[in-house]
């Protein structure tokens, strides 16, 4: 390679890097405009931090029992202490520490299920959409059939028979949820395949791996990302519900759903046992949903356009009107 071409390559790479930074900055600016999305992103970052550094942040071990301090109220009550800021449960375990550790389970299950189900679903969808014919018919039949299953009941039974644990919860939820990704990937592949630019790529002789990876997958990332985030929210709720029913995470492990279920027996004398983990679930899911709706907004140019129109119409109207009138009045 001659020095000049190396140079241009270097420059091209630099430009590419620069463009990427530009894109990130643009995303940041976009985020600043959308307050709800910003709050969502901040909340999720905080939650992830909380989950990762849980042992360091939590004031107590979540399983440490202190039977002398059973059902202690939060600090703002007369009997509350700073030692147990958010009170303790019926075994004297620290609610704050349990809530912090609970984030681990929720986020871990969410991430694992989304990766498993998403990976499997996307592969099946790509195969069905790109290979077509019998593969397509088979995969679609499979999806149709599984979608028509009473999924949650089957999940409950499988969990009951195999024995609930973190792993089984993840596997069962993934088995139950991969169909959405499959369907979406397939329909996207079909519509993109028929689009002129993919046809053009095929006409000029691109081989199918290139077509899939260079032309089809990039178009899928944005809808898939939004779907994955929405599914993440759904999975967090599902894990909580399973644990609440006693068929998810088992003690001594901690999970928000589990804590609500244990706290419900003491609901009338210690409201915080139910309220705090419940709020934790709600806030987590809400944060994820906020980010998802923000992402959907910025990945849809039409929606963005409308948003902007509403924003600007009021501000610029008067200025424009004045200048046009001036021009019209001029001889």
């Amino acid at each position, binding site marked *: 390679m001659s020095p000049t071409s190396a140079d241009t390559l270097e420059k091209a790479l630099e430009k590419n890097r620069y463009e990427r930074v530009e894109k990130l900055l643009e995303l940041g600016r976009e985020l600043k405009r959308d307050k709800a999305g910003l709050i969502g992103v901040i909340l999720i970052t905080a939650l992830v931090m909380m989950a990762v550094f849980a042992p360091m942040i939590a004031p107590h071990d979540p399983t440490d029992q202190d039977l002398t301090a059973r059902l202690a109220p939060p600090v703002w009550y007369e009997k509350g202490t700073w030692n147990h800021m958010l009170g303790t449960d019926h075994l004297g375990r620290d609610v704050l520490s349990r809530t912090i550790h609970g984030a681990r389970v929720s986020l871990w299950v969410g991430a694992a299920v989304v990766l498993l189900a998403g990976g499997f679903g996307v592969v099946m969808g790509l195969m069905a959409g790109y290979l077509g014919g019998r593969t397509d018919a088979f995969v679609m039949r499979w999806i149709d059939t599984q979608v028509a299953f009473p999924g949650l009941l089957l999940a409950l039974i499988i969990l009951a028979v195999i024995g609930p644990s973190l792993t089984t919860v993840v596997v069962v939820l993934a088995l139950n949820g991969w169909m959405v990704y499959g369907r979406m990937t397939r329909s996207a592949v079909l519509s993109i395949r028929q689009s002129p630019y993919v046809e053009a790529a095929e006409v000029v002789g691109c081989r199918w791996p290139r077509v899939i990876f260079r032309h089809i997958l990039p178009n899928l990332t944005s809808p898939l990302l939004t779907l994955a985030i929405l599914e993440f929210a759904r999975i967090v709720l599902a894990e909580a519900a399973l644990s609440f029913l006693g068929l998810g995470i088992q003690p001594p492990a901690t999970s928000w759903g589990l804590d609500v279920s244990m706290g419900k027996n003491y609901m009338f004398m210690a409201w915080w046992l139910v309220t705090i983990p419940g709020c934790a679930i709600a806030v987590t899911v809400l944060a994820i949903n906020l980010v998802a709706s923000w992402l959907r907004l910025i990945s849809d140019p039409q929606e*963005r*356009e*409308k948003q*902007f*129109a*509403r924003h*600007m*119409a009021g501000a*610029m*109207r008067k200025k*424009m*009107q004045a200048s*046009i*009138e001036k*021009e*019209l009045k*001029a*001889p």
Partner: protein
Amino acid sequence: MNDNQNTPLLEVRNLVVNFYTRGGVVQASRGVSFQVGHGQTLGIVGESGSGKSVAVQAVMGLISNPGRIEGGDIFFMGQSLLDPAGRKFVRKVRGKDIAMIFQDPMTSLNPVFTIGTQITEVLRHHLGMNRDQARKRAMDLLGLVDINAPEKRLKQYPYEMSGGMRQRVMIAMALACEPRLIIADEPTTALDVTIQAQILELLADLQQRLAVSVILITHDLGVVAQLCHRVAVMYAGRIVEVGDADQVFASPVHPYTKGLIRATPRLDVVTERMVSIDGVPPDLISPPQGCAFSPRCDQAENACLRPQTLTPLGDDRHVSCWCAIKGDTR
């Protein structure tokens, strides 16, 4: 409301319409004025994006977010459509005295209602007909637009009909209340060539028989020459030339009109290649000062940068071009 022959049926004065987009404020209509007399056909021609559709949609009150009418006035039968009293008036005349035919018959009809429902609802709303009266009238209307077996057609859904047939239904719907003005916004653009001719013939025939005024929007000069009494040429959100159709075509004054006429392919003249106007239409977010056509005009001079208005030029002829006004029409 006065309704004598002296006031034009429709008058648009200095209409300003802006669209607020992320890219900036698109000035789709920058002071458009025109008139339509009783029983007259006005053709509005211009490239796509020149503001033709926006101008007539403003007449119908169909400009919606992100667009806004921000200046000028519209008078129908001497009554303003934009002042506070006009808003009530618009609701009364829209669909009854002014009817509109849209560009794409494929999407203009509601896919989940029968043709019959969609025609009769106009009659029942505006004329207060009952179900049977409306059905009879709808059948007559379908006959009027040359649709056979109207009884059967009334029960059909739009998807069961061809594009030409749907456009006929749209025309029947427009004629339902015997309007005084029909606005046809590129009524044939989405249709096959043979069907185009049929639809235009039908429109011309109906216009003569019913003595209705018509605004025909098109970018096909041939159509205008055939059907229209008057023609208005639009460019970049303004009317650049307006006048009697025959006169305008015989001796165009504005350089843009000349270019358009030259660019129209003719069957009787053998040409080596298609003639086109050099350059691209201006960006309506920041339109050029003065004459918007000047960047593409071979006669442009410094004077063209000054603000311009439509200037009378002989009887019923207006043009907005400094060179033309100076008499240098070559």
